[in-house]
Protein backbone atom coordinates (compact mmCIF):
# COMPACT_ATOMS: atom_id res chain seq x y z
CA UNK A 1 0.00 0.00 0.00
CA UNK A 2 2.69 2.42 0.98
CA UNK A 3 4.78 1.94 -2.15
CA UNK A 4 2.19 2.86 -4.73
CA UNK A 5 -1.20 4.48 -4.97
CA UNK A 6 -2.16 3.02 -8.31
CA UNK A 7 -1.93 0.06 -10.63
CA UNK A 8 0.34 -0.45 -13.58
CA UNK A 9 -2.31 0.32 -16.21
CA UNK A 10 -3.16 3.68 -14.65
CA UNK A 11 0.53 4.55 -14.44
CA UNK A 12 1.08 3.88 -18.14
CA UNK A 13 -2.13 5.67 -19.10
CA UNK A 14 -1.08 8.80 -17.20
CA UNK A 15 2.49 8.83 -18.49
CA UNK A 16 1.81 8.22 -22.17
CA UNK A 17 0.48 11.65 -23.31
CA UNK A 18 3.41 13.65 -21.91
CA UNK A 19 6.07 11.15 -22.89
CA UNK A 20 4.81 10.67 -26.44
CA UNK A 21 4.74 14.43 -27.06
CA UNK A 22 8.27 14.75 -25.74
CA UNK A 23 9.38 11.78 -27.78
CA UNK A 24 7.94 12.93 -31.12
CA UNK A 25 8.68 16.66 -30.90
CA UNK A 26 11.93 16.70 -28.92
CA UNK A 27 13.82 13.43 -28.77
CA UNK A 28 13.06 12.25 -32.30
CA UNK A 29 14.24 15.52 -33.95
CA UNK A 30 17.29 15.54 -31.67
CA UNK A 31 18.36 12.14 -32.95
CA UNK A 32 17.06 12.47 -36.49
CA UNK A 33 19.23 15.52 -37.15
CA UNK A 34 22.24 13.17 -37.40
CA UNK A 35 20.67 11.37 -40.35
CA UNK A 36 19.43 14.49 -42.13
CA UNK A 37 22.93 15.94 -41.81
CA UNK A 38 24.15 13.09 -44.00
CA UNK A 39 21.80 13.91 -46.90
CA UNK A 40 21.65 16.67 -49.48
CA UNK A 41 17.99 17.44 -48.79
CA UNK A 42 16.75 20.85 -49.91
CA UNK A 43 13.41 22.56 -49.43
CA UNK A 44 12.66 22.97 -53.13
CA UNK A 45 13.80 21.31 -56.34
CA UNK A 46 14.69 17.71 -57.15
CA UNK A 47 16.52 17.01 -53.89
CA UNK A 48 13.46 17.99 -51.85
CA UNK A 49 11.63 14.77 -52.76
CA UNK A 50 14.49 12.35 -53.17
CA UNK A 51 17.47 13.47 -51.16
CA UNK A 52 20.63 11.38 -51.59
CA UNK A 53 22.60 9.90 -48.74
CA UNK A 54 25.99 11.59 -48.88
CA UNK A 55 27.61 10.24 -45.71
CA UNK A 56 30.12 12.58 -44.14
CA UNK A 57 30.43 14.80 -47.19
CA UNK A 58 28.61 17.68 -45.47
CA UNK A 59 30.89 17.51 -42.47
CA UNK A 60 33.99 17.61 -44.66
CA UNK A 61 32.49 20.66 -46.32
CA UNK A 62 31.73 22.32 -42.98
CA UNK A 63 35.38 21.97 -41.98
CA UNK A 64 36.45 24.13 -44.90
CA UNK A 65 33.47 26.50 -44.78
CA UNK A 66 34.69 30.02 -44.00
CA UNK A 67 31.19 31.14 -42.98
CA UNK A 68 31.14 28.37 -40.39
CA UNK A 69 34.44 29.54 -38.90
CA UNK A 70 33.26 33.13 -39.01
CA UNK A 71 30.07 32.17 -37.15
CA UNK A 72 32.00 30.07 -34.63
CA UNK A 73 34.45 32.89 -33.93
CA UNK A 74 31.64 35.44 -33.49
CA UNK A 75 29.70 33.05 -31.25
CA UNK A 76 32.76 32.51 -29.04
CA UNK A 77 33.33 36.26 -28.68
CA UNK A 78 29.61 36.74 -28.04
CA UNK A 79 29.50 34.08 -25.30
CA UNK A 80 32.73 35.30 -23.74
CA UNK A 81 31.79 38.99 -23.84
CA UNK A 82 28.10 38.93 -23.09
CA UNK A 83 27.72 35.90 -20.83
CA UNK A 84 30.98 35.01 -19.08
CA UNK A 85 32.32 38.53 -18.62
CA UNK A 86 29.18 40.64 -18.99
CA UNK A 87 26.25 38.85 -17.38
CA UNK A 88 28.22 36.98 -14.74
CA UNK A 89 30.39 40.00 -13.91
CA UNK A 90 27.57 42.52 -13.79
CA UNK A 91 25.29 40.04 -12.02
CA UNK A 92 27.91 39.52 -9.32
CA UNK A 93 28.55 43.26 -8.99
CA UNK A 94 24.83 43.98 -8.61
CA UNK A 95 24.40 41.17 -6.09
CA UNK A 96 27.32 42.48 -4.02
CA UNK A 97 26.22 46.12 -4.16
CA UNK A 98 22.71 45.26 -3.01
CA UNK A 99 23.76 42.68 -0.42
CA UNK A 100 21.80 43.15 2.82
CA UNK A 101 20.00 46.23 1.44
CA UNK A 102 16.53 44.79 1.11
CA UNK A 103 14.62 47.63 -0.52
CA UNK A 104 17.45 48.60 -2.85
CA UNK A 105 17.86 44.96 -3.86
CA UNK A 106 14.22 44.45 -4.69
CA UNK A 107 14.15 47.66 -6.76
CA UNK A 108 17.28 46.79 -8.76
CA UNK A 109 16.09 43.22 -9.21
CA UNK A 110 12.71 44.22 -10.60
CA UNK A 111 14.29 46.51 -13.19
CA UNK A 112 16.81 43.86 -14.25
CA UNK A 113 14.13 41.14 -14.33
CA UNK A 114 11.91 43.33 -16.52
CA UNK A 115 14.65 43.34 -19.18
CA UNK A 116 14.71 39.57 -18.91
CA UNK A 117 11.01 38.77 -19.25
CA UNK A 118 9.81 41.20 -21.94
CA UNK A 119 9.18 39.13 -25.13
CA UNK A 120 12.24 39.01 -27.39
CA UNK A 121 10.62 40.75 -30.38
CA UNK A 122 9.66 43.71 -28.21
CA UNK A 123 13.10 43.85 -26.66
CA UNK A 124 14.65 43.85 -30.14
CA UNK A 125 12.57 46.83 -31.21
CA UNK A 126 13.29 48.68 -27.97
CA UNK A 127 16.99 48.43 -28.77
CA UNK A 128 16.55 49.38 -32.41
CA UNK A 129 14.79 52.52 -31.15
CA UNK A 130 17.31 53.13 -28.35
CA UNK A 131 20.31 52.94 -30.70
CA UNK A 132 18.82 54.58 -33.81
CA UNK A 133 21.52 56.68 -35.46
CA UNK A 134 19.47 59.90 -35.77
CA UNK A 135 16.62 59.80 -33.26
CA UNK A 136 17.62 57.08 -30.80
CA UNK A 137 17.70 58.11 -27.15
CA UNK A 138 21.36 57.20 -26.69
CA UNK A 139 22.55 59.33 -29.62
CA UNK A 140 20.30 62.24 -28.63
CA UNK A 141 21.90 62.14 -25.17
CA UNK A 142 25.40 61.86 -26.66
CA UNK A 143 24.91 64.87 -28.89
CA UNK A 144 23.30 66.84 -26.06
CA UNK A 145 26.50 66.49 -24.02
CA UNK A 146 28.59 67.49 -27.01
CA UNK A 147 29.70 64.09 -28.34
CA UNK A 148 29.09 62.97 -31.90
CA UNK A 149 26.35 60.52 -32.81
CA UNK A 150 27.39 56.93 -33.44
CA UNK A 151 25.87 54.52 -35.95
CA UNK A 152 26.06 51.62 -33.51
CA UNK A 153 24.83 48.81 -35.75
CA UNK A 154 27.35 49.64 -38.50
CA UNK A 155 30.38 50.83 -36.61
CA UNK A 156 30.34 48.44 -33.63
CA UNK A 157 27.91 45.63 -34.56
CA UNK A 158 29.40 42.85 -32.44
CA UNK A 159 29.95 45.08 -29.42
CA UNK A 160 26.36 46.29 -29.79
CA UNK A 161 24.80 42.82 -29.66
CA UNK A 162 27.13 41.90 -26.79
CA UNK A 163 25.97 44.89 -24.75
CA UNK A 164 22.39 44.15 -25.76
CA UNK A 165 22.70 40.59 -24.49
CA UNK A 166 24.25 41.71 -21.20
CA UNK A 167 21.21 43.93 -20.71
CA UNK A 168 18.89 41.09 -21.69
CA UNK A 169 20.32 38.28 -19.56
CA UNK A 170 21.99 39.67 -16.42
CA UNK A 171 18.88 38.92 -14.32
CA UNK A 172 19.58 35.20 -13.95
CA UNK A 173 23.13 35.71 -12.68
CA UNK A 174 22.10 38.48 -10.32
CA UNK A 175 19.29 36.36 -8.84
CA UNK A 176 21.54 33.33 -8.46
CA UNK A 177 24.39 35.30 -6.85
CA UNK A 178 22.03 37.18 -4.54
CA UNK A 179 20.68 33.85 -3.35
CA UNK A 180 24.24 32.53 -3.00
CA UNK A 181 25.31 35.48 -0.84
CA UNK A 182 22.42 34.76 1.51
CA UNK A 183 23.95 31.35 2.25
CA UNK A 184 27.10 32.89 3.76
CA UNK A 185 26.83 32.95 7.56
CA UNK A 186 26.78 36.65 8.62
CA UNK A 187 29.26 35.92 11.40
CA UNK A 188 32.02 35.29 8.82
CA UNK A 189 31.73 38.80 7.44
CA UNK A 190 31.33 40.33 10.91
CA UNK A 191 34.55 38.68 12.03
CA UNK A 192 36.33 40.01 8.95
CA UNK A 193 35.02 43.50 9.74
CA UNK A 194 36.16 43.31 13.35
CA UNK A 195 39.72 42.50 12.29
CA UNK A 196 39.53 45.38 9.81
CA UNK A 197 39.74 43.47 6.53
CA UNK A 198 39.56 45.52 3.33
CA UNK A 199 36.62 45.13 0.92
CA UNK A 200 38.83 43.19 -1.49
CA UNK A 201 40.09 40.85 1.25
CA UNK A 202 36.54 40.25 2.44
CA UNK A 203 35.54 39.31 -1.09
CA UNK A 204 38.61 37.16 -1.76
CA UNK A 205 38.76 35.30 1.56
CA UNK A 206 35.14 35.13 2.70
CA UNK A 207 32.67 35.71 -0.12
CA UNK A 208 34.37 34.05 -3.07
CA UNK A 209 35.18 30.67 -1.48
CA UNK A 210 31.58 30.41 -0.30
CA UNK A 211 29.93 31.14 -3.65
CA UNK A 212 32.48 29.42 -5.91
CA UNK A 213 30.21 26.51 -6.82
CA UNK A 214 27.34 28.88 -7.67
CA UNK A 215 29.63 30.80 -10.01
CA UNK A 216 30.50 27.61 -11.88
CA UNK A 217 26.82 26.62 -12.18
CA UNK A 218 25.99 30.10 -13.43
CA UNK A 219 28.80 30.11 -16.01
CA UNK A 220 27.78 26.78 -17.53
CA UNK A 221 24.08 27.63 -17.73
CA UNK A 222 24.49 31.10 -19.21
CA UNK A 223 27.06 29.74 -21.68
CA UNK A 224 24.55 27.11 -22.80
CA UNK A 225 21.74 29.67 -23.16
CA UNK A 226 23.85 32.35 -24.82
CA UNK A 227 25.25 29.84 -27.28
CA UNK A 228 21.69 29.22 -28.52
CA UNK A 229 20.43 32.80 -28.51
CA UNK A 230 18.73 33.93 -31.73
CA UNK A 231 17.47 37.39 -30.69
CA UNK A 232 20.41 39.33 -32.27
CA UNK A 233 18.99 38.27 -35.63
CA UNK A 234 16.02 40.55 -34.91
CA UNK A 235 18.41 43.47 -34.33
CA UNK A 236 20.94 43.01 -37.12
CA UNK A 237 19.86 40.08 -39.30
CA UNK A 238 23.44 38.84 -38.90
CA UNK A 239 24.93 41.84 -40.67
CA UNK A 240 26.46 44.09 -41.68
CA UNK A 241 28.41 41.71 -43.94
CA UNK A 242 28.12 38.75 -41.49
CA UNK A 243 29.80 40.63 -38.63
CA UNK A 244 27.08 39.56 -36.18
CA UNK A 245 26.31 36.20 -37.73
CA UNK A 246 26.21 33.88 -34.74
CA UNK A 247 26.18 30.12 -35.33
CA UNK A 248 22.41 30.08 -34.67
CA UNK A 249 21.90 32.76 -37.32
CA UNK A 250 24.18 30.97 -39.80
CA UNK A 251 22.18 27.75 -39.32
CA UNK A 252 18.96 29.67 -39.84
CA UNK A 253 20.29 31.32 -43.01
CA UNK A 254 21.58 28.04 -44.47
CA UNK A 255 18.49 25.96 -43.76
CA UNK A 256 15.65 28.47 -44.08
CA UNK A 257 16.94 31.27 -46.32
CA UNK A 258 19.04 29.18 -48.74
CA UNK A 259 16.84 26.09 -48.20
CA UNK A 260 19.84 23.74 -47.81
CA UNK A 261 18.25 21.54 -45.16
CA UNK A 262 20.79 18.72 -45.32
CA UNK A 263 23.79 21.00 -45.01
CA UNK A 264 22.02 23.10 -42.37
CA UNK A 265 21.34 19.92 -40.39
CA UNK A 266 25.03 18.99 -40.40
CA UNK A 267 25.95 22.38 -38.88
CA UNK A 268 23.02 22.02 -36.47
CA UNK A 269 24.40 18.63 -35.39
CA UNK A 270 27.70 20.27 -34.43
CA UNK A 271 25.83 22.95 -32.46
CA UNK A 272 23.68 20.34 -30.70
CA UNK A 273 26.79 18.32 -29.78
CA UNK A 274 28.28 21.42 -28.16
CA UNK A 275 24.98 21.86 -26.28
CA UNK A 276 25.17 18.23 -25.22
CA UNK A 277 28.69 18.61 -23.84
CA UNK A 278 27.72 21.72 -21.86
CA UNK A 279 24.54 20.09 -20.51
CA UNK A 280 26.39 16.91 -19.46
CA UNK A 281 28.98 19.02 -17.67
CA UNK A 282 26.22 20.84 -15.82
CA UNK A 283 24.31 17.68 -14.90
CA UNK A 284 27.37 15.82 -13.65
CA UNK A 285 28.23 18.83 -11.54
CA UNK A 286 24.79 19.16 -9.96
CA UNK A 287 24.59 15.41 -9.33
CA UNK A 288 27.94 15.41 -7.62
CA UNK A 289 26.82 18.25 -5.38
CA UNK A 290 23.72 16.32 -4.34
CA UNK A 291 25.67 13.14 -3.62
Amino acid at each position, binding site marked *: *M*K*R*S*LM*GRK*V*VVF*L*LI*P*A*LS*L*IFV*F*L*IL*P*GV*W*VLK*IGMTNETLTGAKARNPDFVGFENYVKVLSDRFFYNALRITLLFVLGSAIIGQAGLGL*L*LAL*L*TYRKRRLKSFVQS*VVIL*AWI*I*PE*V*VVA*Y*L*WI*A*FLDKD*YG*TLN*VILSAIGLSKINWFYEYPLLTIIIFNI*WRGTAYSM*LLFSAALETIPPSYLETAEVIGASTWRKFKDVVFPNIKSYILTDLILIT*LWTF*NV*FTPYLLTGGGPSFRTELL*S*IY*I*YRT*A*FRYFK*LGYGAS*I*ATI*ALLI*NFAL*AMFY*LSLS*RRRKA
Partner: protein
Amino acid sequence: MKDPRRTSKIVSYIILAPIVAFFICPILWLIVTPFSIRPSLFISLNGFTLNNFERVFQNRTAINAFRNSLVISVSVVVLVTTCALFAAYVLSRHDFRGRNILLYMLVLFSSVVSGAAAMVPIFILNLRLGLVNTELGVILTLSGGIMPTALFILKDFFDSIPRTYEEAALVDGSSPLQVMFRIFLPLSSKGIIVIAMLVFTQSWSNFLVPFVLLRSTSKYPVSVAIYTFFSEVGVPDIGMISAYAFLYTLPVIFAYVLIERKFGFSFYGGIKG
Protein backbone atom coordinates in the same frame (compact mmCIF):
# COMPACT_ATOMS: atom_id res chain seq x y z
CA MET B 1 35.96 61.03 11.67
CA LYS B 2 34.17 59.54 8.69
CA ASP B 3 31.80 56.65 9.04
CA PRO B 4 33.05 53.85 6.75
CA ARG B 5 29.58 52.28 6.41
CA ARG B 6 28.16 55.55 5.14
CA THR B 7 30.98 55.93 2.63
CA SER B 8 30.45 52.42 1.34
CA LYS B 9 26.74 53.13 0.93
CA ILE B 10 27.43 56.29 -1.07
CA VAL B 11 29.99 54.48 -3.23
CA SER B 12 27.55 51.70 -4.01
CA TYR B 13 24.84 54.21 -5.00
CA ILE B 14 27.28 56.00 -7.29
CA ILE B 15 28.14 52.72 -9.06
CA LEU B 16 24.52 51.55 -9.18
CA ALA B 17 22.95 54.71 -10.63
CA PRO B 18 24.36 54.46 -14.19
CA ILE B 19 23.75 50.68 -14.30
CA VAL B 20 20.12 51.07 -13.30
CA ALA B 21 19.73 53.91 -15.83
CA PHE B 22 21.21 51.61 -18.50
CA PHE B 23 18.59 48.98 -17.70
CA ILE B 24 15.66 51.41 -17.47
CA CYS B 25 16.28 53.55 -20.58
CA PRO B 26 15.13 51.11 -23.31
CA ILE B 27 12.15 50.03 -21.18
CA LEU B 28 11.10 53.62 -20.51
CA TRP B 29 10.52 54.05 -24.24
CA LEU B 30 7.96 51.22 -24.17
CA ILE B 31 6.07 52.86 -21.31
CA VAL B 32 6.05 56.40 -22.71
CA THR B 33 5.78 56.16 -26.51
CA PRO B 34 2.39 54.41 -26.80
CA PHE B 35 0.75 57.40 -25.10
CA SER B 36 2.65 60.08 -26.99
CA ILE B 37 0.95 62.40 -29.51
CA ARG B 38 4.02 62.62 -31.73
CA PRO B 39 5.68 59.24 -31.11
CA SER B 40 9.34 59.01 -32.14
CA LEU B 41 12.33 56.77 -31.46
CA PHE B 42 13.42 59.20 -28.76
CA ILE B 43 11.83 58.87 -25.30
CA SER B 44 9.50 61.86 -25.12
CA LEU B 45 5.97 62.37 -23.92
CA ASN B 46 4.51 65.39 -25.67
CA GLY B 47 0.88 65.30 -24.65
CA PHE B 48 -1.21 62.28 -23.76
CA THR B 49 -3.29 60.33 -26.28
CA LEU B 50 -4.84 56.91 -26.81
CA ASN B 51 -4.81 57.40 -30.55
CA ASN B 52 -1.97 54.90 -31.05
CA PHE B 53 -4.03 52.15 -29.44
CA GLU B 54 -6.97 53.07 -31.64
CA ARG B 55 -4.79 52.46 -34.70
CA VAL B 56 -3.86 49.03 -33.34
CA PHE B 57 -7.52 48.08 -33.14
CA GLN B 58 -8.11 49.33 -36.67
CA ASN B 59 -5.28 47.18 -38.01
CA ARG B 60 -6.66 43.88 -39.32
CA THR B 61 -3.30 42.05 -39.22
CA ALA B 62 -2.64 43.18 -35.65
CA ILE B 63 -6.00 42.02 -34.32
CA ASN B 64 -5.83 38.77 -36.22
CA ALA B 65 -2.36 38.08 -34.79
CA PHE B 66 -3.69 38.64 -31.28
CA ARG B 67 -6.32 36.01 -31.89
CA ASN B 68 -3.70 33.60 -33.29
CA SER B 69 -1.40 34.15 -30.30
CA LEU B 70 -4.27 33.49 -27.95
CA VAL B 71 -5.27 30.28 -29.76
CA ILE B 72 -1.67 29.02 -29.77
CA SER B 73 -0.82 29.87 -26.15
CA VAL B 74 -4.10 28.69 -24.64
CA SER B 75 -3.82 25.39 -26.51
CA VAL B 76 -0.23 24.91 -25.35
CA VAL B 77 -1.19 25.78 -21.76
CA VAL B 78 -4.07 23.27 -21.74
CA LEU B 79 -2.06 20.54 -23.44
CA VAL B 80 1.15 20.91 -21.42
CA THR B 81 -0.51 21.50 -18.05
CA THR B 82 -2.82 18.50 -18.40
CA CYS B 83 -0.19 16.08 -19.70
CA ALA B 84 2.50 17.28 -17.29
CA LEU B 85 0.05 17.08 -14.40
CA PHE B 86 -0.77 13.42 -15.09
CA ALA B 87 2.84 12.43 -15.65
CA ALA B 88 4.21 14.41 -12.71
CA TYR B 89 1.62 12.83 -10.42
CA VAL B 90 2.79 9.37 -11.44
CA LEU B 91 6.45 10.29 -11.15
CA SER B 92 5.89 11.78 -7.72
CA ARG B 93 3.64 9.05 -6.26
CA HIS B 94 4.78 5.89 -7.97
CA ASP B 95 8.23 4.43 -7.41
CA PHE B 96 9.66 2.56 -10.32
CA ARG B 97 13.14 1.74 -11.44
CA GLY B 98 14.86 4.38 -13.56
CA ARG B 99 12.49 7.15 -12.52
CA ASN B 100 15.23 9.63 -11.71
CA ILE B 101 17.23 8.66 -14.78
CA LEU B 102 14.14 9.28 -16.90
CA LEU B 103 13.67 12.75 -15.45
CA TYR B 104 17.35 13.59 -15.93
CA MET B 105 17.24 12.41 -19.53
CA LEU B 106 14.18 14.55 -20.28
CA VAL B 107 15.69 17.69 -18.81
CA LEU B 108 18.96 16.96 -20.60
CA PHE B 109 17.16 16.63 -23.92
CA SER B 110 15.13 19.79 -23.45
CA SER B 111 18.24 21.87 -22.83
CA VAL B 112 20.21 20.26 -25.67
CA VAL B 113 17.51 20.30 -28.36
CA SER B 114 16.84 24.03 -28.38
CA GLY B 115 17.41 27.14 -30.41
CA ALA B 116 17.83 27.56 -34.15
CA ALA B 117 19.88 24.35 -34.42
CA ALA B 118 16.92 22.27 -33.20
CA MET B 119 14.61 24.05 -35.63
CA VAL B 120 16.21 22.28 -38.62
CA PRO B 121 15.08 18.73 -37.71
CA ILE B 122 11.88 20.08 -36.13
CA PHE B 123 11.01 21.82 -39.38
CA ILE B 124 11.62 18.63 -41.38
CA LEU B 125 9.52 16.63 -38.90
CA ASN B 126 6.66 19.09 -39.35
CA LEU B 127 7.15 18.94 -43.11
CA ARG B 128 6.81 15.14 -43.12
CA LEU B 129 3.74 15.29 -40.86
CA GLY B 130 2.10 17.93 -43.07
CA LEU B 131 2.18 20.42 -40.19
CA VAL B 132 4.23 23.21 -41.78
CA ASN B 133 2.18 26.42 -41.95
CA THR B 134 -0.41 25.11 -39.47
CA GLU B 135 -1.15 26.35 -35.97
CA LEU B 136 -1.27 22.73 -34.83
CA GLY B 137 2.40 22.28 -35.81
CA VAL B 138 3.38 25.34 -33.75
CA ILE B 139 1.28 24.15 -30.79
CA LEU B 140 2.75 20.63 -30.75
CA THR B 141 6.33 21.83 -31.26
CA LEU B 142 6.07 24.38 -28.45
CA SER B 143 4.43 21.79 -26.18
CA GLY B 144 7.14 19.19 -26.73
CA GLY B 145 9.83 21.74 -25.92
CA ILE B 146 8.24 23.09 -22.73
CA MET B 147 6.93 19.76 -21.39
CA PRO B 148 10.11 18.43 -19.68
CA THR B 149 10.64 21.59 -17.60
CA ALA B 150 6.96 21.77 -16.67
CA LEU B 151 7.09 18.10 -15.69
CA PHE B 152 10.22 18.58 -13.62
CA ILE B 153 8.94 21.59 -11.68
CA LEU B 154 5.51 20.04 -11.08
CA LYS B 155 7.03 16.79 -9.85
CA ASP B 156 9.17 18.75 -7.41
CA PHE B 157 6.11 20.60 -6.20
CA PHE B 158 4.04 17.41 -5.83
CA ASP B 159 6.83 15.80 -3.80
CA SER B 160 6.29 18.51 -1.19
CA ILE B 161 2.62 17.60 -0.69
CA PRO B 162 2.19 14.90 1.96
CA ARG B 163 0.69 11.60 0.88
CA THR B 164 -1.38 10.96 3.98
CA TYR B 165 -4.68 12.38 2.63
CA GLU B 166 -4.50 10.25 -0.50
CA GLU B 167 -3.66 7.12 1.48
CA ALA B 168 -6.57 7.71 3.83
CA ALA B 169 -8.96 8.10 0.90
CA LEU B 170 -7.64 4.89 -0.67
CA VAL B 171 -8.23 3.03 2.56
CA ASP B 172 -11.79 4.39 2.50
CA GLY B 173 -12.26 2.68 -0.83
CA SER B 174 -11.83 5.45 -3.42
CA SER B 175 -10.30 4.51 -6.77
CA PRO B 176 -6.84 5.89 -7.67
CA LEU B 177 -8.29 8.33 -10.24
CA GLN B 178 -10.90 9.52 -7.75
CA VAL B 179 -8.11 10.17 -5.29
CA MET B 180 -6.22 12.16 -7.87
CA PHE B 181 -9.12 14.38 -8.91
CA ARG B 182 -10.92 14.83 -5.57
CA ILE B 183 -8.07 14.90 -3.07
CA PHE B 184 -4.84 15.66 -4.85
CA LEU B 185 -5.82 18.33 -7.39
CA PRO B 186 -7.38 20.73 -4.87
CA LEU B 187 -4.24 20.43 -2.72
CA SER B 188 -1.92 21.21 -5.59
CA SER B 189 -3.89 23.95 -7.37
CA LYS B 190 -1.31 26.60 -6.50
CA GLY B 191 1.54 24.76 -8.23
CA ILE B 192 -0.65 24.02 -11.24
CA ILE B 193 -1.59 27.68 -11.65
CA VAL B 194 2.06 28.70 -11.54
CA ILE B 195 2.99 26.12 -14.18
CA ALA B 196 0.11 27.23 -16.39
CA MET B 197 1.35 30.84 -16.09
CA LEU B 198 4.92 29.86 -16.95
CA VAL B 199 3.83 27.83 -19.96
CA PHE B 200 1.67 30.72 -21.08
CA THR B 201 4.48 33.28 -20.97
CA GLN B 202 6.84 30.90 -22.78
CA SER B 203 4.47 30.19 -25.66
CA TRP B 204 3.09 33.74 -25.84
CA SER B 205 6.62 35.20 -26.12
CA ASN B 206 8.08 32.60 -28.47
CA PHE B 207 9.26 33.96 -31.79
CA LEU B 208 11.46 31.35 -33.44
CA VAL B 209 9.00 28.44 -33.70
CA PRO B 210 6.18 30.30 -35.50
CA PHE B 211 8.75 32.31 -37.47
CA VAL B 212 10.20 29.11 -38.95
CA LEU B 213 7.04 27.00 -39.22
CA LEU B 214 4.45 29.50 -40.48
CA ARG B 215 4.29 30.94 -44.00
CA SER B 216 0.96 32.80 -44.31
CA THR B 217 0.68 36.26 -42.79
CA SER B 218 -2.86 35.48 -41.65
CA LYS B 219 -1.53 32.75 -39.34
CA TYR B 220 1.20 34.84 -37.66
CA PRO B 221 1.07 35.28 -33.89
CA VAL B 222 1.87 38.71 -32.42
CA SER B 223 5.61 38.01 -32.08
CA VAL B 224 6.06 37.45 -35.81
CA ALA B 225 3.58 40.20 -36.71
CA ILE B 226 5.55 42.80 -34.73
CA TYR B 227 8.75 41.69 -36.44
CA THR B 228 7.20 42.14 -39.88
CA PHE B 229 5.84 45.56 -38.83
CA PHE B 230 9.25 46.93 -37.94
CA SER B 231 11.44 45.07 -40.44
CA GLU B 232 9.30 45.81 -43.52
CA VAL B 233 10.56 48.35 -46.01
CA GLY B 234 8.99 51.78 -45.78
CA VAL B 235 8.42 54.02 -42.80
CA PRO B 236 7.22 52.03 -39.79
CA ASP B 237 4.27 53.43 -37.83
CA ILE B 238 6.17 53.94 -34.57
CA GLY B 239 3.10 54.93 -32.54
CA MET B 240 1.13 51.88 -33.62
CA ILE B 241 4.05 49.45 -33.13
CA SER B 242 4.81 50.79 -29.65
CA ALA B 243 1.16 50.55 -28.59
CA TYR B 244 0.93 47.06 -30.03
CA ALA B 245 4.14 45.97 -28.29
CA PHE B 246 2.85 47.48 -25.06
CA LEU B 247 -0.40 45.48 -25.22
CA TYR B 248 1.52 42.34 -26.15
CA THR B 249 3.90 42.71 -23.19
CA LEU B 250 1.25 43.40 -20.53
CA PRO B 251 0.01 39.79 -20.05
CA VAL B 252 3.62 38.57 -19.61
CA ILE B 253 4.35 41.13 -16.88
CA PHE B 254 1.03 40.36 -15.24
CA ALA B 255 1.80 36.61 -15.21
CA TYR B 256 5.26 37.14 -13.70
CA VAL B 257 3.95 39.44 -10.97
CA LEU B 258 1.44 36.75 -10.11
CA ILE B 259 4.15 34.07 -10.04
CA GLU B 260 6.36 36.24 -7.87
CA ARG B 261 3.54 36.82 -5.39
CA LYS B 262 3.00 33.08 -5.13
CA PHE B 263 6.53 31.74 -5.20
CA GLY B 264 9.27 34.30 -5.56
CA PHE B 265 11.61 34.43 -8.49
CA SER B 266 14.18 31.82 -7.59
CA PHE B 267 11.54 29.26 -8.42
CA TYR B 268 11.65 29.49 -12.17
CA GLY B 269 15.40 29.78 -12.58
CA GLY B 270 15.46 26.70 -14.74
CA ILE B 271 12.71 27.48 -17.17
CA LYS B 272 14.01 30.55 -18.92
CA GLY B 273 16.29 29.47 -21.73
